[in-house]
């Protein structure tokens, strides 16, 4: 038992057993009272932390039932990030962690984070706990499978903003939900250009996780980009079937290299293993999710990155009462995706070529899907002259084919 807890907190704790409470930590600063003096120096930090966020929440909770308006006095906004995996994984979760770092730099924002949250009923409880125990006003749900839970919680907490990375919000879904997502096929197209220019064998490799629309699009972007500079190039595709299985990813990378592929990109949770394996075997690699250039000083070309930090603008809009979109998708034009720094192996001429193409995406002059286009089974997908807009999400969601040049 704690010896030195303020009386108000002690009563509050008992009280809280019987009373569901809504607490806002930031409102709790008022009742940090006695009891800190007796603590040893060593534990002071953590102790203070707890007093701030633990014990006194309860006190605040009980007081707030008397003074509900107190919460309005809060100035800091707490933002909760929920990750499906470990947050520094050189991959998907890290791309969100990077965004969380940027969000936390906004004045008056405090970020709380929880990692390895599975896509089960647990995530709902995590959100509730963040909202009610930490006072979170914005929740970033950074995994696909959180979608159902986010919709459910958004109905329950209409004053909290939820974001989801699937960008599948449709009218009728709660208004306090934002779906946002970048078109990573655009940076993959640029990686493809690098691959096409750098490949010696004319064969490149793509490792996918699951047969999902964005995996197809990323692969097609990669191949179309490569074939835009080297029309005879082919690409081997292997799906591992899992988001995270390092042994299988290494094995797949090796078998692609054995097959003669000399530029490889892996669309898995953490491409670290694949990039490192490529480096060891002396072939080129491209990154995905976050910046992996440091892992392969010799063979890294460039990589497709997200720019989830664009979520910061939603937080700003939400806290200042400005309007925000419910659905935001975009590529380079809307600054929703990024390109990793070039590796040392990429000559200036190729860099210029890639940057020109990137600018063409920004100016909306370069389209990924344009006719004539065949899939890898020889069926015609687009007739000559047919052009698909880069923002045509309906077309992209329906992509379940690999373009010509893909083997496997």
């Amino acid at each position, binding site marked *: 038992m704690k010896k030195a807890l303020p009386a108000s907190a002690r009563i509050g704790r008992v009280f809280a057993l019987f009373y569901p409470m809504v607490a806002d930590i930031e409102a709790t600063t008022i009742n940090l009272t006695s009891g800190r003096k007796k603590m040893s120096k060593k534990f002071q930090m953590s102790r203070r932390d707890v007093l701030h966020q633990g014990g006194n929440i309860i006190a605040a909770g009980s007081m707030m039932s008397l003074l509900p308006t107190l919460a309005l006095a809060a100035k800091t906004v707490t933002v909760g990030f929920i990750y499906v995996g470990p947050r520094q994984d050189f991959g998907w979760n890290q791309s969100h962690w990077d965004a969380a770092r940027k969000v936390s730099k906004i004045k008056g924002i405090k970020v709380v984070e929880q990692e390895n949250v599975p896509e089960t009923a647990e995530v709902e409880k995590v959100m509730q706990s963040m909202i009610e125990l930490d006072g979170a006003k914005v929740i970033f749900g950074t995994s696909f499978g959180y979608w159902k839970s986010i919709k459910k919680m958004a109905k329950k907490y209409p004053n909290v903003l939820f974001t989801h990375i699937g960008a599948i919000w449709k009218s009728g879904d709660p208004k306090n939900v934002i779906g946002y997502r970048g078109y990573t096929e655009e940076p993959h197209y640029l990686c493809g250009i690098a691959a096409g220019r750098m490949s010696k064998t004319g064969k490149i490799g793509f490792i996918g996780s699951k047969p999902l629309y964005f995996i197809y699009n990323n692969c097609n972007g990669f191949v179309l980009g490569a074939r835009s500079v080297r029309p005879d190039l082919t690409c081997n595709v292997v799906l591992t079937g899992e988001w995270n299985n390092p042994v299988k990813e*290494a094995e797949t990378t090796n*078998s692609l290299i054995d097959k003669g592929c000399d530029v490889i990109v892996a669309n898995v949770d953490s491409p670290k293993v694949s990039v490192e394996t490529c480096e*060891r075997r002396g072939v080129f690699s491209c990154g995905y999710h976050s910046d992996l250039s440091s892992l392969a000083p010799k063979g890294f070309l460039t990589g497709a990155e997200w720019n989830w930090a664009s979520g910061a603008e939603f937080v700003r809009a939400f806290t200042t009462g400005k309007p925000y979109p419910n659905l935001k998708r975009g590529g380079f034009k809307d600054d929703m995706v990024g390109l990793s720094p070039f590796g040392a192996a990429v000559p200036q001429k190729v860099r210029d070529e890639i940057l020109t193409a990137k600018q063409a995406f920004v100016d909306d002059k370069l389209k990924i899907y344009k006719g004539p286009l065949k899939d890898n089974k020889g069926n015609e997908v687009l007739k000559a002259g047919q052009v698909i807009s880069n923002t045509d999400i309906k077309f992209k969601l329906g992509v379940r084919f690999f373009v010509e040049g893909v083997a496997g």
Partner: protein
Amino acid sequence: MTDGGDLGWWGVLIAVMGGAIRVSTPYLFVSLGETLTEKGGRVNLGLEGILVMGAMSGYGTAVVTGEPWLGVIVAGCAGSALALLHGLICNLTRVNDIAVGISLFIFGTGLAFFLGKPFINPSAPRLPHLELGAWSTYPQVRSALEINALFIIGVVLAFALAWGLKNMKWGLILRTVGDSTEAATALGYSVNWVRTMGTVAGGFLSGVGGSFLSLYYPGTWNEGLSSGQGLMAVALVIFARWNPIYCFYVSLLFGGATALGPALQTVGITSNYYLYGAAPYFLTLGLLIYSSSTKHSLAGAPGEVSISR
């Protein structure tokens, strides 16, 4: 077959063989470890936790000190420590070794994930390998024959253990204790002591197996690194009939099966990859059903092991 670098179906074969060598080492070490444990009469289902702990501690040591071989040793010691815990708890009466194993599985992985957070991001130096394929002009063959010293140690160890279990005094003691508590007690051996030592030795090997995962292949540390290699050890040992040399063959088989899926996809066989991935499990279960009988226990099974009764 557009250029000389493409070996077509031969490429698949080479990739499977190379994969067998690359992927099999952790299987080999955990199954040898479990063989030692079970020969003494106990089952340690916590090898998964030990393997993951070994992978983490080995990687962490290599990151901090820059010495991968030191990492291997630390991994083995970490594995022994966890195994010692298993051994000591199982020495108590009325304690189920399988349940303790599973709790060790959860505790070991939990501890490894806890301590391993700072090591997910940094890269560690890798264990060296021997270029046994330098004679070949094909890069595929050369890569398949890049053999890690741990693999060779594992193979040597398999034969040495097989010989030692049969001919050395410790082997005899271990087998006696594993086959019959009464006989061992009558001969004056401390059953608990011997079993604990068997478990600890098994833990050391499993920890080393884990360090192979993190320090050589795939050569990284993250929380999805092990896909159940440690849990499978128990099944592998039955498959191998508690014979260290068979453990080697079975590990090669499992490694090759893991490599088969990706290799087949590169030549265009793309469907059903989940089922190919589960092939080793189907195979083991089928073999188990084929070779079991209600009339007698499995050949080679230590009499005191709970899973053979």
